[in-house]
């Protein structure tokens, strides 16, 4: 009843005093959603031109023939699947990404715990130092690692030899080369996990641990029954984010091995570069780089659905 009265009242006011155009604009600009949209507009424009347009363009490109004169649908993808080297690249990318993400997450979790248990004063120093790999430009640090692994003058081999061990073909033996590129990726990416997990750890209410202590829970039990469940969402999101980035990695492999020896360290991005830019087959290169898109897309949907579900449960 009261609502009806209010509506009538508002209607009468409106008919008696129509807001001017300037006032309408001011009201429009005052709306929070409008302000938010306007503030996001530069970013939306940038993303549209630098992300969305290239993404759709590369999808279009991947469906053209070699000379980009004919639409061939999924022909490029079909062709790729028939190639031995490409199948090896799929396998290698999966090994590279999954093992690197696993170790990054593991090392990130362990170091986050270690730092979280340090006194507040020492924490800042360690946090800063451990973030260094993530802060240095990747191309630069990869080059540094390449020097350490240099096929002929490796610093690591110098140390090994001086300790009486045999030299290791860090980059010339395909299996060691795979190990080396994964190691560098872990070194670079672990600090991201560390900082995310540290933030998550700090947000776990201390009372939960106190209550568990009173109940006689061990450190491991606290970790399994309090820390991990409280961190599940952040773990899921960081793993998803890192998987996407690692599957698309280019710099480390390109600088350290360029896909060799015998194509045995190629990942999607380096193989796409070889086909698209070096060999001049842009459509095939585009198809290679898009190959994981549907798989990662499905993984993203599943992981984000889990995150939302847990969020609702907590809420």
């Amino acid at each position, binding site marked *: 009843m009261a609502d009806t009265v209010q509506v009538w009242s508002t209607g009468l006011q409106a008919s008696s005093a129509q807001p001017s155009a300037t006032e309408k604009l001011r009201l429009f600009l005052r709306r929070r959603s409008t302000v938010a949209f306007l503030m996001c507009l530069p970013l939306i424009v940038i993303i549209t031109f630098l992300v969305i347009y290239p993404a759709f363009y590369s999808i279009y490109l991947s469906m053209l023939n070699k000379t980009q004169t004919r639409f061939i649908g999924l022909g490029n993808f079909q062709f790729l699947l028939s190639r031995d080297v490409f199948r090896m690249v799929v396998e290698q990318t999966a090994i590279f990404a999954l093992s690197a993400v696993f170790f990054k997450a593991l090392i990130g979790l362990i170091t986050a715990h270690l730092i979280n248990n340090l006194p507040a004063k020492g924490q800042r120093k360690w946090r800063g130092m451990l973030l260094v790999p993530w802060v240095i430009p990747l191309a630069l640090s990869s080059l540094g690692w390449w020097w350490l692994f240099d096929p002929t003058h490796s610093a690591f081999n110098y140390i090994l030899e001086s300790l009486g061990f045999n030299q290791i073909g860090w980059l010339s033996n395909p299996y060691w080369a795979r190990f080396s590129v994964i190691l560098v990726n872990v070194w670079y990416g672990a600090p991201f996990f560390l900082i995310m997990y540290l933030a998550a750890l700090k947000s776990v209410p201390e009372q939960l641990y106190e209550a568990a202590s009173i109940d006689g829970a061990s450190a491991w039990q606290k970790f399994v029954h309090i820390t991990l469940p409280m961190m599940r969402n952040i773990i899921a999101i960081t793993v998803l984010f890192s998987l996407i980035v690692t599957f698309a990695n280019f710099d480390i492999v390109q600088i350290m091995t*360029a896909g*060799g020896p015998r194509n045995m360290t190629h990942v999607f991005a380096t193989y796409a570069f070889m086909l698209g830019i070096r*060999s001049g087959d*842009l459509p095939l290169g585009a198809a290679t780089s898009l190959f994981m898109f549907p798989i990662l897309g499905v993984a993203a949907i599943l992981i984000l659905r889990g995150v939302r579900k847990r969020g609702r449960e907590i809420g």
Partner: protein
Amino acid sequence: MSQSVLPTRPSRRSLLKSAALGSVAAVAAPYVKDTYAAGSLSLGVWDHWVPGANNTLTKLCNEWGAKNNCEVKIDYITSQGEKDKLTAAAEAQAGTGHDIMSHRDWNIRIHQNVLEPMDDVVSQLIKQYGPISPVAEYLAKIKGTWMGVATTVGSQVKPCCSRISLYKQHAGIDVTELFPADESKWDKTKTDSWNWDTYLDSAQKLFKAGFPVGLPMGQSSDSVDWTGALFNAFGVVLVDAKDNIKVNSDETRTVMEYAKKLMAVNPPEVYAWDDAGNNRWLISGKGSSIMNPPSAWAVAKRDNPSVAADCWTHPMPKGPKGRFVGQLPQFYGLWNFSKNKAAAKDLLLYISQKDSAAQLVQASFGYDLPSFKTMYDLPTWQTVEPPVGTVYGYPPRGDEQTSIAGAPARSEVGAQIYNQAINTVMVAKFTQGNEKLEDVIKWAENELEGTLRV
């Protein structure tokens, strides 16, 4: 001092006459300068690794610009990380950018649809300087039309660069006597003795002495080029000009067995070397020989002068089918979206003259190699030192033929074979991976079939 050999500004009458003549000699009509250039031109050019070499090209372009009232702007783009190729690919896709772009190896073929035909310029140069390198023709003459002009800057071959004293001491071979710095003194019996069998024998001795040769077996161009020359010397054809896959042959089996013996006396890290790996190997003093342009020697002059003074660049070993050296020419391409095509062609003709080439070769200490054999008499290769005559054998002389891995397949197919390094992966699979020869050939057949995709 260079002088312009370009015709002076033509009259209307002479232009009409040229046009009439052009209709007679339609295809191979020489370049006719049809106007004063004026305006501006922009070039995206390969950034030379020799300090100061870019300045000579800039000077030549500015000279031409001053004479023709045209502003020339040059961007030197590094090939590190293939940035020059990325730039070319971006400009080709966008349809805008520089007027002239330098293209390495296969890029003329890759961008053929957006390049301006250059028959007029190249036919003029052929008229002046005689036949052009067959590798340049293979890479830039597409369906009978020249789509690029071979550059002097950055064009190269990859012959042997050997340590004189090490070969003498450990293999009993005097490379300076085999290939003295005067072609008229080359003795056919002696040069014929420099074959792949002798090479293997000497490589084994040098390996035992602790100074192995350094032959890269990665997937970059140095590896692909020397392996391509080896395959050619043994008569191996991967794919012929009619798209027939020919890798499954006795020649392939012979060369692979040979490669197994040769790679066994190389340092194991050659499988991970990039294009700088062999240079570093020679400069370090550990290596006795590499197959490379004189860049390693030039850097050794600065970093390890005693090694530089002991280097001698000379032809490749001879095989059952001849003596081949890997060649990688560069080209200038003129985008078809350029707004100043006539001026661009005029500039390219100017910087391709022998006088200009002489200055460019001098500035690069003999590294840059014109694609015309008649220019191999430039004085730089005879005079640079130490030791005097060290790079005389760099331009292909005697019976040495230039080649590129991937040929004689159609260049579209050749580009795939070359850039996917199918030849070196084959060798690496057999020698490093110890895969069965028949499996390697089967793998190569499958990969080569993929390169035939339209």
